[in-house]
Every structure is written in structure tokens, then in C-alpha cells.
């Protein structure tokens, strides 16, 4: 029997669908992007994509991985991994267009194809009832997490957002919030000992947008909150922006898979979508409702999708924006990046 663990790292892949197939689902933990990917240093290679290649290559050979086409470098990473002998790779087509019934149908068909892949990995085909039950469970977990958000430091929030995208093997707190001590980093790490005052309402309200945050980035979030900022919105790629909307109970009752498609494909705004105006609308709406006074963008070198947007946001958002273009050897929590964030806070007024 194959190991039924499935790794993934894209929010357009519904965790409920995979869990309902009876496999153990794990979010692919990318602790840092400074390691070697086995690809060798290649000009133009996104360090995140390289880190994903490295993580998948070093995972159990029996585990499967789901990648998506939302980013060209990830798409080619799938090809690279398969060529390197990794045959348990599923590359899910997530259409860039979203306005047509055909695009939606393509997404649905890809979920069905994913389902067949999971069955080949040792999973089983779920009944409607099972899918509905799993969806309800994850929906409640996300609702609990959202409720707990105001009292959480940004780094905890960020970690919890990953944990609610996994099979429920972690310890659950009284509030229903998923806490996995393992995810809180190495206690020996100096950054782990610095914690923002949780729930400090007086901090400057900030939004975080851009590519995924890694374990190594969380020290930056703590430092910013310690220095007087407060992240009221995590709109990064793995942040709250890419959580599906709450399920409609009645529709989920009638046709859970259709509701799953609507909640994920139908509502998650992202920079890869064409056109991407729902993403702009999301930012504008959330910035107003959360009274955001400053924006921190975290992006990776060679990530064209995020990079191309930054200058435009500077123009249309009308809010100070700090663009942190991270490099392979620079952790966001240290050195220049830290100094820039602190200056930024000073400029917009703590």
C-alpha cells in the first residue's frame, strides 16, 4: 500500500476534496529559500519554485505532490520533477480566465481528474455525504480561525492559515484554532523569542500582500508588530485572501462539489487571473474596511506576476507601499529588510 500522504502548496486546490478522498493532506512546508534545489544555480529561477523542487525531491518517495499551473515556473517545476524520476506529481490546470462557464467546467474537470489521481495513490471515492461532512468541518475550522484573528499576532495567524489547509492531525485549542507547536519554529531561533503584543489595537494598521510567506519570514512579522505596526490583512498568496468563502449550507447540501468549485474557483482573487480586476476590487474593499494605512509587499525575484503589479498599486492604492524584493540570501527578518520596514513605519507614523 502506498503512503497516502499528499503534499500541496496552492490555495486553489481544495483541501476538502483531497481529505474526502481519504488521503492525508499536508501543506508543503517551505522553511527557507536559501537551500539548494538540486537544479543548481540558474539565472531567472524563482527561489520559491526552486525551494518547492527541493522540498518535493526530499519528501518520501511514496508521497504524492499536487502542483498547479497558476505560475509558469511551478508548471515547469512539475516537468522538471517528473523528468528527475518523481512520478507521483499531479499538475492541476487552474484556468487563468474565470468569466466563462467553460473555464469553470475545466476547473471542475480537473478536480475530478485529481480525484482519480488520489484514488490511484490509495485514496477512495467519497460519497456526497462524506464530502459534505468534510466541507462542513473545514468551514467551521476556518470560521473559528477568523473569529480568533483579532487576538492573534500576525505570525501566529500566518501559521494557522497553513494549518487549516491540512488534514486535522494537529492539536486543536479550546477556541477551535489550529495550533501546531512544530510550526512555530525552532525555539532556539532568536526571532522566535520576540512576540508582538497580541491584540494590540494601537498599532499602525498594515496590509501584507505578495507571494507566499515562509517560515523564515515570520520573524519579520513579529518585529514589525513589536515596532508598532499591526498587520490587519494578510493578502499574501498563502494568506487569508486565498481562503475560500464560507460555504452555502443549502447549496452544499444539494451538490457539495459544485459549491466547492464556486467557493474556490468562483471567489478567490489572485494576480494570475485574467483579467485580474477582482484582485484589485478585493484590495480596495479590504483596505477601506480595515482602515489600512500602509502596505508591505513581499515578492520573490523573477516572480513576474507580482512584480508587474507593484508599480501599478503604488499609483492606484493611494496608500504608502513598501516593496520588499527578497533575494535568495536575504532573510526578511534581518538586516536591510528589517531596517526598511522600521523606517517605513516611522514615515507613515507609528
Amino acid at each position, binding site marked *: 500500500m502506498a503512503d497516502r500522504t499528499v503534499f500541496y502548496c496552492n490555495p486553489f486546490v481544495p483541501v476538502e476534496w483531497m481529505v474526502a478522498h481519504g488521503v492525508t493532506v499536508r501543506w508543503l512546508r517551505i522553511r527557507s529559500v536559501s537551500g539548494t534545489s538540486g*537544479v543548481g544555480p540558474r539565472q*531567472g529561477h524563482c527561489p520559491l519554485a526552486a525551494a518547492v523542487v527541493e522540498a518535493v525531491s526530499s519528501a518520501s518517495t511514496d508521497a504524492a505532490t499536487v502542483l498547479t499551473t497558476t505560475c509558469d515556473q511551478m508548471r515547469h517545476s512539475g516537468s522538471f520533477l517528473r523528468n528527475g524520476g518523481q512520478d507521483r506529481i499531479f499538475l492541476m490546470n487552474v484556468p487563468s480566465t474565470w468569466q466563462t462557464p467553460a473555464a469553470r467546467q475545466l476547473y471542475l474537470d480537473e478536480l475530478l481528474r485529481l480525484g482519480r489521481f488520489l484514488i490511484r495513490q490509495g485514496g477512495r471515492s467519497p460519497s456526497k455525504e462524506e464530502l459534505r461532512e468534510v466541507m462542513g468541518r473545514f468551514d467551521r475550522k476556518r470560521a473559528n480561525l477568523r473569529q480568533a484573528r483579532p487576538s492573534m499576532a500576525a505570525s501566529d495567524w500566518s501559521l494557522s492559515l497553513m494549518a487549516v489547509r491540512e488534514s486535522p492531525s494537529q492539536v486543536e485549542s479550546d477556541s477551535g484554532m489550529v495550533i501546531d507547536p512544530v510550526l512555530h519554529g525552532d525555539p532556539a531561533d532568536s526571532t522566535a523569542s520576540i512576540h508582538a503584543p497580541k491584540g494590540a489595537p494601537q498599532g499602525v494598521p498594515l496590509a501584507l500582500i505578495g507571494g507566499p510567506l515562509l517560515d523564515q519570514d515570520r520573524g519579520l512579522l513579529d518585529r514589525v508588530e513589536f515596532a508598532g505596526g499591526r498587520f490587519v490583512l494578510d493578502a499574501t498568496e498563502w494568506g487569508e485572501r486565498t481562503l475560500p468563502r464560507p460555504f452555502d449550507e443549502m447549496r452544499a447540501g444539494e451538490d457539495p462539489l459544485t459549491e466547492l468549485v464556486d467557493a474556490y474557483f468562483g471567489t478567490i482573487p489572485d494576480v494570475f487571473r485574467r483579467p485580474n480586476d477582482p484582485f484589485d476590487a478585493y484590495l480596495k474593499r479590504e483596505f477601506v474596511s480595515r482602515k489600512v494605512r500602509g502596505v508591505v509587499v513581499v515578492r520573490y525575484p523573477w516572480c513576474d506576476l507580482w512584480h508587474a503589479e507593484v508599480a501599478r498599486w503604488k499609483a492606484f492604492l493611494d496608500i504608502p507601499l513598501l516593496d520588499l524584493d527578497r533575494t535568495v540570501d536575504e532573510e526578511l527578518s534581518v538586516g536591510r529588510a528589517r531596517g526598511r520596514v522600521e523606517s517605513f513605519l516611522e514615515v507613515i507614523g507609528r
Partner: protein
Amino acid sequence: MSEIAKITLEEWDRRYEELRAAGMVERPYGGLLRRHVECGDTRLTRLSLDGSAAALRLWNFLLTEEDRLREARSQGKKILGTMKDLGTIPVMAYSLDKVVAFYPDGAWWLPCIKENRTGLLAIADRIGVDESFCPVRAMLGAFIGKAHFPIPDLLTCSVGATCDDFTAIAQRLVDLGHPIVWWEVPHRRRPEAGEDSIRLSAGFDVPVSQVAFVRSELERVRRVLEDWAGQELTDERLRAGIARANRVRRVLGELRWLNFTSEPCPLPSLEMMIAEMLSIHFCSDQDESLLVLEELLEEVRRRVANHEGVLPSGAVRVFWVNPVADLWVMNLLEEAGGRICGNDIMFCHALDLIPEELPPLEALARMALSDPMVGSSDDRAERICSEIERFGAEAVVISRIPGASHCALEGAVIGEVVRRQRRIPVVEIEVPPLSDSLEPSLRTRLGALVEIALEARLSRLGESDTVHG
């Protein structure tokens, strides 16, 4: 066998007079090549060029495209800017009576042709699209500056399995006030066990469902084009349009075969590459592009029959992957002792014949899915291997495009598959729009490749002389 020397732009002045004196009849876009330099196409002065009347016509046709587009507009024709799909939508556009189509993407060569004097890249820099993007960012500068091609009346752009550079830059165009009709081409995948599939003419097996999806997207584009052009785009019209496109592709097919297999090499790689580019959108005049290619084919046939070539016999047969941002590098390869024998410059699907027996949008959907860039790098490598065998290439150059998202990993995959299957040397180089500063390194790398390939050739010859050979 005799060698026809390539000539410089200066030598072209005299050659031009000789051809005129010999009775050369030119088209309205004809004339001295030098005039293009005076209009800013200064890279021509760095190039070694073919000295035939056919090549002169080819260059003149290429370098007058912007004039042709303006002329079309003044005649009341509508201009469609087709982006990214490289070869599919133009077939539909040229099936309409009063539409011309071109690729704004082609602006990526402007920094090279005009040797960075256009300021296009600087404009892109100013709006935050810097050198970490592919040189196609020059397209943004061209839209903003409005100093090159006329701004199209309608834009289409294929998305999905495309490079992120392009889709990100195209989205910026929308923000600059140029709406785009997006259409999706999904990542081409291999069929699963038991899944209905179709073998594309490119040799790839693809699920029927993917073809049906792309066909539905093309149906959507058809309706948009009909509304916009005010003319029904019937299947009959599309069939005729496909037949016309295939005429161009047939000529190119013979031209490629003769040029990649004849000894000595009858046409320089630079002119060959430009000829191939005409298949994508016919350089904004489908009928004329056919005539230009036919004249070039006649010239090549004549040279082959006379055993004439532009390179010494025995040049190393190189397969080239990806287009070069700097045309001059085609010259460098030949100076290093190589010649092009097969290529994948990202639009192989625009060189393959479109099936004429199928419903037209079904045929075009299959062609769109044959695009080497929408599938995996493994698939692309497989096709490259089969073309290497077909044309007898002895070495491979993978030419990286600076900043292009697909170039980060594909070279590693293609290189490995080629080495494993064909056991020939592979080199990866990066070619920016102006590569003069990299000349020593490029010469060294290309020279080393040629040397290794020659050694392998000698070794093969030695083996064939043994009793077991």
C-alpha cells in the same frame, strides 16, 4: 561546390546597383537596405547578410511592416493585435475581408534592431517592468510611446499555459487603457489511461476534452471577431483561410528541408529565421508573404541545384532552441563553424500544416495545443529529439531569453533529454537584445560546441572504418 560570400550593409549598396542594372524588379516596399538604417534600424550595420535579390525582398518586407499596417488602416481595414498564441488567431483574422493582424509581441526585437535607441525598455523600466522581465517588455514601451506600430483596434491574448512575463505585461496593457480579449489554452497534458485522446500532427497525444475546450475558446473568439469586424466568419471562410495559411507553410516546409539538409548550406541562418517568422502572421500581408517566400525558395532551389552555399562544406549541424533576442548571434554561430539544421523557436506549431479535412475550429484548436510552449518541457524535448534525427543535427544550442519565466528550468530538462536520447553535445547560452559585450564568451561557447561536435563526427567516421563499423 562554390561558396557565396555573405555581405555587409555597405557591400549591399553596390550589390543593389548591380541587381538593378541586371533588371531586378522591385515591389513598392523595395529599395536600398541602407534606408532602414537611416530610419533607425542600425543593427543592420552589424550583420552579415545574404546578397540575393530574394533576401533583399525578404528584409524589405520585414522592415516595412509598420508602414503596411498604417496603409491598411488608411484603407479602412481594422487592425487586430494578436498576442502570445503565435500562429492561430491570425489564421482566423486573415479569413475576414477587412482585417489585418499582427503581433505586438514582435516589438521584442525593436531594442535589437534599433540598438536600444528607441527608449522602449526605458519606458518599461519607468512603469516598473524592469530587466528582470523578458525583452518582450519593449511592447509596453511601444504602446505607451505610440512611435512604432499603430495601436490595434482590438487585442486578443492567449493565457493559461503561457510565460508569466507575457501575461503580466499584457495585464499592464489593460491598465493602460487597452482592453484585451483573453482566451485560454490550458497546459497540454498527456491523456490518462482509458481517456479519449487525439494524436496531434506535432506528434503529441492530447485528451479529447482539452481539444474541445480550446475549440470552445476559439468559438468565443470567433464571435468577438464577427461582432468587431461586422462580418460573419463562416466555416467556409475559415477553410479558405486555413488553405491560404497552409500554402505559406508548405513553401516554408520545403525551404526548411532544403536549407537544413543540403550541403553546403544554401541560405544563412539569419534569413532563414526571418522567413520562418512570416508563418506566424504573414508580416501583415498574407498574399505578399507567400510571394516573398516563393522567391526565396526559388533562390535556394537554384543554389542547391548548382551546389552553391553560403558556408563552407562540413559546417557543424546545429539544432537551435528558442529565438534569439539579438539577430547578430545567428551570424556568430556561422562564424564559429556552425549552421542551423533544425530549430524550435517557439512556434513549431505555426510551421506544421493545419489539417484541412477537419472542421476549421477543431483544426485550429489542435494547432493551438501543438504549441511547444503550452506543454511540458519533456514533450518539447521529445519533439526536439525527433527533429534532430530528421535533420541530422550534431549539436544543440539552447538560447535563453533573459528574464523569460520558461527559460529558468526548461534548458535543464531539454538538455538532459537530448543528451540521453541523442548523445550529442548541448550548450546553453543567454542572448540579450544587444550581445556585443558578451561576444568573447558567446564565441568561446559556440566555438567549443562546434569543436566537440567535430570531434564526435571524426570519431563516428573512425568507427565506421573499423571492421565492426
